[in-house]
């Protein structure tokens, strides 16, 4: 029994049996995903979030840092989400905040993909001592309490988006690595991998062209869930005042609201709502993809 067993996400959602089907029958997984009600809802929410992120300068009614009205005005036509204690427009803040939050989540997801898929592929394909060693390291990283580690790192190294991304990315990959390793482990004995090997393909070729495309669907599920989790952790860090002071994010906005809870509900309500919509979108998409993969 390993010290730490797979987490909720992998236990519940990773499509354990799907790895054995050849790639061609799963080509349509995107179409199946979108045909599910949860997939459609996820696509709409994610699309909305992305549109807001891209169009922020066009949609914003004011400079998010500029004083654009009286302080603590309740939502109105001029200020759809009200203003904060300094009179800054919250609607514009939420729009621009999306950029920082989504940038952090995307960067962490990329970093996790590189570390997690890389380690999982190598461990599962090579096996033996290297696999043992990599899996011990993975288990150790999995035990690390990500949230508290990131807090210590930021406290010691100072706040900054680069440090948040690095700290979250370097602690988020273990679950992905374990899922990829398990899939590769069962894939590597199947004919098409054997065929590639016996026709002289190099290890790198097999990993990149044969194995990676086949584990991608499960990887996408895990990364979708991770994307939502990172948005939540980033929000919590911002709430604690650990966000980058120069970059407005949803978490930073929510943290500023805590002191005004009794007098200005909108300051807490709208940034939290934005986070929930974005996280729900990626969770729904990941869920629907997992469901379509396991053929439910």
């Amino acid at each position: 029994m390993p010290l730490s067993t797979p987490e909720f996400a992998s236990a519940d959602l990773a499509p354990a049996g799907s790895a054995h089907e050849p790639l061609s029958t799963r080509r349509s997984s995107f179409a199946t995903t979108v045909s599910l009600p949860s997939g459609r809802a996820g696509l709409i929410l994610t699309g909305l979030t992305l549109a807001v992120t891209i169009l922020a300068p066009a949609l914003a009614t004011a400079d998010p840092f500029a004083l654009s009205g009286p302080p603590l005005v309740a939502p109105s036509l001029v200020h759809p989400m009200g203003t904060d204690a300094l009179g800054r427009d919250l609607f514009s803040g939420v729009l621009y905040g999306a950029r920082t939050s989504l940038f952090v989540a995307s960067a962490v997801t990329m970093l996790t993909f590189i570390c997690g898929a890389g380690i999982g592929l190598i461990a599962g394909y090579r096996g033996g001592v290297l696999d043992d060693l990599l899996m011990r390291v993975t288990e150790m990283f999995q035990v690390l309490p990500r949230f508290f580690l990131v807090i210590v790192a930021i406290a010691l190294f100072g706040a900054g988006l680069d440090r948040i991304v690095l700290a979250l990315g370097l602690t988020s990959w273990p679950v992905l690595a374990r899922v990829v390793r398990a899939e590769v482990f069962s894939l590597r004995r199947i004919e098409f991998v054997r065929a590639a090997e016996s026709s002289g393909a190099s290890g790198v070729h097999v990993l990149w062209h044969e194995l990676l495309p086949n584990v991608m669907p499960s990887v996408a599920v895990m990364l979708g869930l991770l994307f939502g989790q990172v948005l939540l952790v980033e929000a919590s860090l911002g709430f604690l005042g650990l966000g980058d002071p120069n970059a407005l994010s949803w978490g930073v906005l929510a943290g500023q609201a805590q002191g005004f809870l009794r007098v200005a509900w909108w300051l807490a309500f709208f940034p939290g709502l934005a986070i929930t919509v974005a996280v729900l979108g990626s969770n729904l998409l990941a869920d629907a993809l997992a469901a379509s993969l396991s053929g439910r």
Partner: protein
Amino acid sequence: MQLVPTVAGIVLVGFLLIHLAPGDPVLALAGEHGDAQYYSFMRQRFGLDEPLPQQLATYFRRVAVGDLGFSYVHGRATLQVIMERAPATLLLTGTALVFAVLFAIPLGILAARRPHGARDIGISALALGFYSAPIFWLGQLSILVIALHLGLLPVHGMTSPGSAAAGMSHVSDVMRHLALPALVLASHEITVLVRLTRSGLIDELTRDHIRTARAKGVRERLVMLHHALPRALLPVLTVVGNRAGHMLAGAAIVEIVFGWPGMGRLLLTSLQTRDAPILLGLFFVVSFTVILFNLVTDLLYAAIDPRVRFR
């Protein structure tokens, strides 16, 4: 016996953080605002004038005897300061865990009774919604609605201000303050456990022993509660054990939202006073709690499930 390398790995991470951080490592171990004499004492205690490998050995020895540094702000040993706050956090987290299990399992059974039925879709959608919401937001909303708008429960702290109540009235005062933060903290765990209970039950209900039981004429309620549930709950147990870190992180945020005087409040004040030894200490205490939780879960699992045995 994978415990030893894991614990060593965590201590190593702490050591690396201290030494990779910009500035003098003594600041991370002894905090800012100290005087020269105090710093030279701490340097000697952690062997900071020696070569790096020896420093690492000294650091391991210090951590092994529970010396996680000294908080200049508090004027006391780090571990002592943290342990003072631990009971409040334990009370909050423990209550939340009990709430989570009490709510999640019945909801999971309800959802699994007719998969993809109206009730299942409702419960699953709600669970995903709560799972996607930041925990501080749920706390802020519950304060706005339940406490400020409806005036049902107190919103801040562990006891009423100026209350010198003792005995039963003290207990009920604490319980009234505990209810809302514990429910908010539980809400995240409930969503995770509902999904697991549901999927575990749905999986279990397709198995042969369930078909046998139904064929024998066992009533559906008994099939669910007696034949399917115990086995479906095994993964739930594992996940509860693995979520100790998540729960403590959530507890820290909830404590800050509700002014609950536990380790989360300590975290916030230590961030504000730049008290690095306390923050490092909290990282260690949480890490070791997570390891302990994993160990207990694995042992429980082995005790309950005869298919799993330690080799």
